[in-house]
């Protein structure tokens, strides 16, 4: 089932000159088609200003299409009567955790959403408990959010979204302000929600290494989707990504550079294990060739 679908989506930002009153139109999303299946882990890459955030804001009706349409679980985002259902289905997490936390105690913050939509008190607490458990923050439930680390705050923000029982979470650069541990915590949490709770995840990021475990990657440029595929297919195209102001994980780049220098490594190496294995095959070509003949030379990366 499609949870997010967009057809010929167009979005124009209109800016008005203060003095002349002249309007200029800049097209942020340019004829985008999108089909995201329920339960997928999707990553969206693209340089600053490529249209990623604008696209994300269409997924819970924060922005409405200038042209074309977006459906969340078959609900048209242009239909005002469904806007609250749409926002409950697709929750959003933004870059700066400090802008998303309002409660003075962690558990109150997490309960804010369900309370707002009139969920009975018993159920609010049940949802708070489950959400805090899901992001691993139960032991901090009585803490003040401003004493938490960045990664912890971001997990509280995710718990706040989870308490709305969404089927889809859109995360717009959730790790941009975090230290390495904070990044790890948040990614682990997001992956767990996807695997264990079956929540569809749409992750927007500038960190290439956060993308390698996605089911599918979309790359945006100039308001269009210019590449889509599995992480391995995307990261095989090093030159193309660099021309789009992007990058590849360091281990992918290392393999790519070695290949340019004459070491026969395959394209699209994504992990250290794959790299070490590939290098072994180079070192002992006779073995890997023999294996190839037997048809089992392919090491399953998963």
């Amino acid at each position, binding site marked *: 089932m499609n949870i997010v679908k967009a057809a010929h989506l167009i979005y124009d930002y209109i800016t008005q000159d203060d003095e002349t009153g002249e309007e200029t139109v800049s097209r942020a999303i340019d004829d985008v088609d999108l089909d995201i299946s329920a339960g997928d882990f999707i990553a969206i890459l*693209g*340089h*600053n*200003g490529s249209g990623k955030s604008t696209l994300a804001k269409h997924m819970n009706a924060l922005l409405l299409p200038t042209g074309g349409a977006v459906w969340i679980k078959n609900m048209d985002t242009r239909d005002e009567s469904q806007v609250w259902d749409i926002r409950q289905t697709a929750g959003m997490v933004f*870059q700066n955790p400090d802008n998303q936390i309002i409660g003075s105690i962690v558990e109150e913050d997490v309960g804010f959403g369900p309370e707002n939509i009139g969920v009975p008190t018993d159920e609010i607490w049940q949802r708070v408990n489950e959400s805090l458990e899901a992001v691993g923050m139960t032991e901090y439930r009585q803490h003040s959010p401003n004493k938490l*680390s*960045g*990664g912890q705050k971001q997990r509280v923000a995710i718990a706040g979204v989870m308490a709305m029982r969404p089927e889809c979470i859109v995360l717009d*650069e959730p790790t*941009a*302000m*975090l*230290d*390495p*541990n*904070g990044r790890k915590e948040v990614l682990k949490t997001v992956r767990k929600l996807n695997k264990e709770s079956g929540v569809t995840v749409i992750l927007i990021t*500038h960190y*290439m*290494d956060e993308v390698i475990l996605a089911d599918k990657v979309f790359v945006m440029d100039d308001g269009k989707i210019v590449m889509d595929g599995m992480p391995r297919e995307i990261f095989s195209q090093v*030159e193309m*990504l*660099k*021309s789009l*102001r*992007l*990058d590849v*994980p*360091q*281990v992918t*780049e*290392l393999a790519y*550079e*070695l290949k*340019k*220098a*004459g*070491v026969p490594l395959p394209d699209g190496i994504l992990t*250290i294990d794959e*790299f*070490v294995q590939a*290098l*072994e095959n*180079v*070192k002992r070509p006779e073995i890997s060739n023999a294996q190839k003949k037997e048809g089992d030379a392919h090491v399953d990366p998963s």
Partner: protein
Amino acid sequence: MSIRLENVNYVYSPDSAFCKQALKDINLEIKDGEFIGLIGHTGSGKSTLIQHLNGLIRATSGRIYYNEQDIYESQFNLRGLRALVGLVFQYPEHQLFEVTVFKDVCFGPNNLGLSKDECEARAREALRLVGLKKKHWQKSPFELSGGQKRRVAIAGVLAMKPEVLILDEPTAGLDPKGRNDILEQISKLHREEHMTVILVSHSMEDVAQYVDRLVVMNRGSVFMEGTPAQVFKHYVELERIGLAAPQVTYVMHRLAQEGYKVDPDATTIREAVSEILSALGKKNEGSEVIQP
């Protein structure tokens, strides 16, 4: 111009329920012309530390010397120090406010009481140093992209002609190309203008590639100091305090364990490529690592 910290302590909100010791007994020397990377988990004291270096925060105890002069002596010109030690905060583009890029960059020197000609000359130079094209100079800063806005904000600090440039996570939120452009530009300022640079970063890959020396903070203390290779060698300890090493360092350690004759302490892709090629018995033809 060196900066030396002796037994610096800083306590936030002393004698209150929120009392917190943010810096503990810091001893540190930053030498003239060094390019320093300052890393540490969120809340480790990095931002508190850098605000001491230009006198924005006064140490609870301890001494700070700028060029061997005690900055807490009554005759020391603290206001002057703030021009000499330029501090670029996180998300500095949020501080842009003028109607044009050029006027925004002039704001700092203007405040120093310099003549209009001098201010404008400095603004032109600063905008050139950050590599912002002339066609953008008369635009509103708010029309620019994230990376361009950040350059304007950095230019605003450079126009004060600082001897030391401190940048607090200058690449946060930028795309990879924007990240590289800004870091290349900073590295050029260091190489060509011989500016002392202190770079606060959460990207281990970035500091490994650019800085001469790393200072690692943990819970308000200096946890470790050394070249990137010396520091990232201790990746297990770094992980314990919420940090990590660049991915290539993990690759190299893994290869060394597997019996490859490589130096496990390579911290950049370039070093790793040449190590692996020589371990495989191939010659490195000096291929350039391409930048996005």
